[in-house]
């Protein structure tokens, strides 16, 4: 693992932190602002949404919203920049879209799943990409559903287990390949190590693989381009980077894998301003900053003449341990390069700044 010269390495500087009185499951920056949201579950079994604003080195609580069910995950991905509605998935399987100015009644609500929604992602909003805004949710009941906020009650796509088959928990979902109005792809990771890629244009399974450890988090490096790279993190401290440009008919996508630490890697997030840099957060409370380097040739021909992808290499730029508890959520600010927020199970949310990213 090569690293940049000591003084030139990106440093992870802790800028502000806030102790919370509840378990925080997800934290997200509000786009186009210095505000962030913390989503979680209070001790009395209700859900909490807290809105903080970054003032100097402090976080100031602007607003606290309490909901009947604990909230597991949220996204701004499918909303416009003006509305900035938050889509959340809660422990009961409900998908709600909230207007934070008037949060009493959700703008959209559906009981999408029978069990907790583990992961949510949105695409088509925030002025990024093209096509209809859509939200995908993955749940413990083994199904992955895609919703359109304009259509009530039924999902526009439902990836469910075959009748009679025992279900596996879906732990993570991500959108990708949304480079024009028709194309869209959903990637889902399950607890038995399966990663499945669904193509929404053809409504079919495009690719699947098994990485031998439960998949904790998947993310494409960019949602709104022709799919380029996919990072999947798993239990046992491993993550895989798949090169998604070339799909081989039998071997699928080429990948490189790295074992970063002994504990689960809970999240991976790509830097919005540079798609080759990503940060992984671990169960030991540490954050690792990685850079992906492309190989000289991204594809080559195999013995039968079909195109096969070539995976590059990953190098560790920096790592830092912030907490003794797992850092379960991570989000880069789309507006300021290097600003990120992370929430850990020690009931603290931390705002960090990663320096020297321009020099990478």
């Amino acid at each position, binding site marked *: 693992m090569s690293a940049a010269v000591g003084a030139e390495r990106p*440093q992870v*500087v802790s*800028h502000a932190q806030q102790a919370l009185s509840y378990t925080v499951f997800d934290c997200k920056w509000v786009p*186009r*602002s*210095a505000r962030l949201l913390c989503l979680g579950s209070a001790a009395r079994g209700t859900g909490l949404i807290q809105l903080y604003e*970054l003032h*100097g*080195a402090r976080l100031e609580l602007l607003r606290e919203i309490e909901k009947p069910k604990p909230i597991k995950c949220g996204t701004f991905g499918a909303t*416009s*920049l*003006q509305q900035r509605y938050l889509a959340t998935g809660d422990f009961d399987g409900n998908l709600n879209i909230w207007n934070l100015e008037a949060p009493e009644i959700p703008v959209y609500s559906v009981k999408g799943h029978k069990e907790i929604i583990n992961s949510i992602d949105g695409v088509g909003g925030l002025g990024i990409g093209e*096509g*209809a*805004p*859509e939200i995908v949710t993955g749940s413990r009941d*083994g199904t*992955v559903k*895609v919703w*359109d906020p*304009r*259509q009530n009650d*039924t*999902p*526009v*796509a*439902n*990836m*469910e*287990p*075959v009748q009679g*088959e*025992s*279900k*596996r*928990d879906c732990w993570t979902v991500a959108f990708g390949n949304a480079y024009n*109005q*028709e194309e869209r792809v959903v990637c889902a990771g*399950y*607890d*038995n*190590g*399966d990663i*499945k890629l*669904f193509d*929404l244009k053809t*409504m*079919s*399974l495009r690719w699947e693989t*098994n990485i*031998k*450890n*439960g998949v904790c988090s998947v993310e494409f490096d960019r949602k709104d381009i022709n799919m380029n790279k996919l990072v999947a993190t798993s*239990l*046992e401290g491993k993550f895989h980077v798949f090169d998604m440009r070339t799909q081989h008919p039998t071997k699928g996508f080429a990948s490189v894998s790295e074992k970063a630490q002994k504990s689960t890697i809970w999240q991976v997030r790509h830097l919005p301003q540079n798609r080759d840099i990503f940060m992984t957060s671990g169960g030991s409370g540490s954050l690792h900053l990685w850079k992906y380097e492309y190989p000289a040739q991204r594809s080559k021909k195999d013995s039968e003449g079909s195109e096969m992808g070539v995976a590059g290499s990953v190098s560790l730029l920096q790592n830092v341990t912030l907490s003794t508890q797992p850092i379960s959520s991570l989000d880069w600010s789309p*507006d*300021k390069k290097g*600003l990120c927020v992370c929430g850990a199970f020690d009931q603290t949310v931390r705002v960090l*700044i990663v*320096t020297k990213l321009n020099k990478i």
Partner: protein
Amino acid sequence: MPVWLREHRWRQTLTAVYLSLPLRGARATPANIFCSERYLKVSIPPFLFEAILYAPIDDTNSTAKIGNGNIFFTLYKKEPAMWDSLTLANADKEKLQYLRENAVLKAQEKAKEETEAKKITKQEHKKYALEATMKLEEAERKRIEDLKEKERQKVAKELELWKNQQKDGDKYKSIQKKGELHKEIEPLKERKSEKMSKTRIPNEGTSKTRLKSTKGCHDSGSIFAQSLKEEQLPAPRAAATIKVNFTPRVFPTALRESRVAEEEEWLHKQAEARRIINSDLSELEDLKEEEKNPDWLKDKGNKMFAMGDYLGAVNAYNLAVRLNNKLPLLYLNRAACHLKLRNLHKAIEDSSKALELLTPPVPDNENARVKAHVRRGTAFCQLELYTEGLQDYEAALKIDPRNKNIEKDAEKIRHLIQGTMQSS
């Protein structure tokens, strides 16, 4: 008796006495010289020189130079005065003794004091060194902290700057938008009036634009362009389902590489257990609950053996083995039955199986192994395979050398072998 050195020469000034002492070939070291305020002694066995000095001297500053076969003393007087002689002339023995002892004591005290002083200075030096290193480390740490602080402050400043930019940017944008809004409303109004004048363009189109424009007027911050774009969004996808197959996994927990081996083993054992229970289920249904317990069956077998019902015992052991074929004692006892029934080959088989199962040869299963060997040996002998039998007996002896019976039997076999060898 020491040899006294008396050929010393001395001269004096007001403040000092210079004494020269030739050593008759003896080698002197500083250890041989003993000096106190009034007493001077040089002792190089067998030579001895001592002098009770006329007046006290300052023994700390006085020096002695050893070289050229003599010692040159420079003694500084405590009181500057001329001495009549080097030594006190009229010194009687007692006084001499007293003085000597005194001198020794004084010297000892001095030595003690010196060591004390040395210790103290050493400690002080150590403390000083420690403090110095601590200071250095502190400085280093501070330096690093400062670097980090600087970095942090720089970054915080940048953040503030960016935030302010954002706010200004937003304000500017909103002002701009308002301007644009007004500008856009004009042409749109014109378009609307145009559309109205033309007949029946899709109602939807007009109603939409009307709705959007009103919304635009109310919402001061909204971008008009956005609302136009909304019209261009594709319709919601046609609902469809994709059926998914999962990689099969028996356990409800998540898959972890490190646990795979354990899980395989567990599954294997479960399969084994199920197989045994399920095999010959039809026959086993007739049996009572306790009769399916291999231990109970073993006890039954033992009782029958004790009573002499060897066939019954064998049956009991057979059933027990079917239920659990990993208990060595079953085979061992069955071997004994077979011996009694003179099924010698079966006896050998069973003893061998028992020995196999008793593989980790630990003190716990010594007894069982001895029995197995003995039984197999007996079977071999009865088949007239005396050498093999002897082997087993010797193995048994190795495990338990104190057993007289085994020894006796082993002897007998040896004789038998020798007998047959001789005769053949």
